[in-house]
């Protein structure tokens, strides 16, 4: 079993966090946003840029067909900060966005780096705003032809993760009796938390009636099941625990990471469409720790689409398989004072699509006790953060020192 292995991620801790301005259509240079976040994280750790010897990001320099999906790559940031690196990595083929964080932990455990700067920048709001979002396949003078995995979906108008994940949700509804009235609470609870977060995008109250009256995107998903594109960058300094002791904040340690995938890496060929690759990542994470779901004080789980967060809750064992709907219904369990506060910053649905990194940022803020009006009571000690959906998923279990 996996448990017999060395748990290398225990050598790593989050020592610094930083975030740029986050907003709709900021119209700012995404590299400038990235540097804002990176410098804030280094400053927050109490380090200087000369201390940074590793650099890690998702998805790396990347622009094909996805305007604003990547704000900066490794090379741009290294050059802009003139970093002298012992190790670096950036890329898309990771266990979700936190693959870049797991890579940093692995590099530290392997002795390749001591202080790794991790960043994720999006500028989808500016890049896709103002009519600049070209329709899929409109280039190439009408001669576009779908290849690779997209050939199996684009000819049928299945052109977005909204469509692919909507079909997973519909299957879950069918098998387990999950309802829109239940799923709604991922969005409604997130909005309640966002009201307490001055940096959230949507802070006005959202009711179940508003949710049920919203326009449909792809059934069973309505507008409020889909996250909101923003511009913004989030960065972390991840350090070796031996180098973390005398820094500005008590380190937030990695208890375990989950990066597994056992099923087919596909949106439609996955074996059980009521779950996702996050199933395997979650199982792996628990196999690497003696902590149990009941030890977790708060959960920050990817809600690029509401249903993904529901899947994470089930996969992580906070409820039984298929019981995600009843678990979130009414919002009591996932409120700030509930048994499992969920997406305490508002999630991506209300606080903006920072694409995974926002959840880890919020988990660290909460474990530091620095979340202000939205602080989870009782001095939380253990947090889980999970990012990604469909065939992409990775998660981390964090503890306060």
């Amino acid at each position, binding site marked *: 079993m996996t448990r017999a292995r060395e748990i290398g991620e225990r050598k790593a801790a989050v020592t610094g966090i930083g975030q740029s301005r986050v907003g709709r259509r900021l119209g700012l240079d995404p590299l400038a946003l990235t540097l804002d976040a990176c410098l804030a994280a280094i400053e927050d750790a109490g380090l200087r840029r000369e201390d940074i010897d590793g650099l890690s990001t998702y998805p790396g320099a990347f622009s094909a067909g996805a305007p604003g999906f990547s704000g900066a790559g490794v090379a741009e940031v290294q050059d802009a900060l003139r970093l002298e690196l012992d190790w670096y990595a950036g890329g898309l083929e990771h266990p979700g966005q936190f693959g870049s964080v797991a890579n940093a932990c692995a590099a530290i455990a392997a002795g390749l780096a001591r202080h790794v700067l991790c960043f994720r920048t999006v500028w989808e709001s500016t890049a896709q705003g103002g009519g600049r979002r070209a329709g899929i396949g409109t280039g190439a003078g009408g001669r576009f032809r*779908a290849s690779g995995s997209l050939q199996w979906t684009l000819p*049928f108008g*299945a052109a977005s993760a909204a*469509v692919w994940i909507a*079909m997973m949700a519909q299957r879950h509804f069918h098998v387990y009796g999950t309802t829109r009235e239940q799923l709604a609470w991922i969005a409604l609870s997130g909005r309640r938390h966002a009201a307490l977060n001055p940096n959230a995008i949507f802070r006005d109250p959202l009711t179940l009636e508003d949710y049920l009256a919203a326009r449909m995107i792809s059934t069973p998903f309505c507008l409020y099941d889909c996250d909101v594109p923003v511009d913004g960058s989030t960065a972390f300094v991840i350090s070796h625990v031996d180098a973390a002791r005398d820094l500005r904040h008590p380190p937030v340690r990695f208890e375990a990471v989950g990066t597994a995938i056992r099923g087919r890496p596909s949106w*439609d060929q996955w074996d059980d469409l009521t779950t996702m690759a996050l199933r395997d990542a979650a199982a792996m994470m628990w196999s690497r720790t003696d902590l149990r779901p009941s030890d977790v004080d708060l959960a920050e789980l990817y809600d690029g689409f509401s249903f993904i967060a529901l899947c994470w809750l089930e996969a992580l064992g906070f409820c039984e398989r298929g019981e995600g709907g009843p678990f979130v219904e009414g919002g009591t369990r996932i409120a700030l004072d509930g048994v499992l506060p969920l997406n305490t910053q508002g999630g991506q649905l209300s606080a903006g699509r920072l694409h995974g990194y926002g959840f880890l940022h919020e988990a660290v803020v909460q474990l530091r006790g620095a979340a202000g009006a939205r602080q989870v009571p009782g001095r939380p000690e253990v947090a889980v953060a999970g990012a990604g959906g469909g065939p992409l998923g990775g998660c981390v279990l964090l503890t306060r020192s």
Partner: protein
Amino acid sequence: MTGALPFRLLPEVTPENAHFWRGGAEGELRFLHCAACDRFVHPPAPRCPSCLRAELAVRASSGRARLHTFTVNHQPWIPGFDPPYVVAIVELEEQPDLRLTTNVVGCAPEALRIGMPLRVVFEAREDDVFLPLFEPAPEVAAP
């Protein structure tokens, strides 16, 4: 004839996938098949993922399937391919994991039921591409 059909993004036909995208010319929904395992392999791959033999042959399926899941899409994603339309994942009757993303046609969205029987119909497109779509089929009595 393609004149009355909506715009669609079409696949790039290659030697590896031509059996799938052009089998509709003969009315057949074709996949690669491993005779040793008696197993269909989709999407096309150089070897059988079970036994790893490289001797895969093209074989026609029945074209009969069941609705595994679906969504009624209301959002315009592709200029010229206008919503609403039904996107579905169907499972061919030959094999539980032989699945396709497709469109269900000839069925009101309210009448869609997961598990309902479907059969393939082909939409002939440019480049000799025949898109496999699915329509409701009569329920087959259990043997």
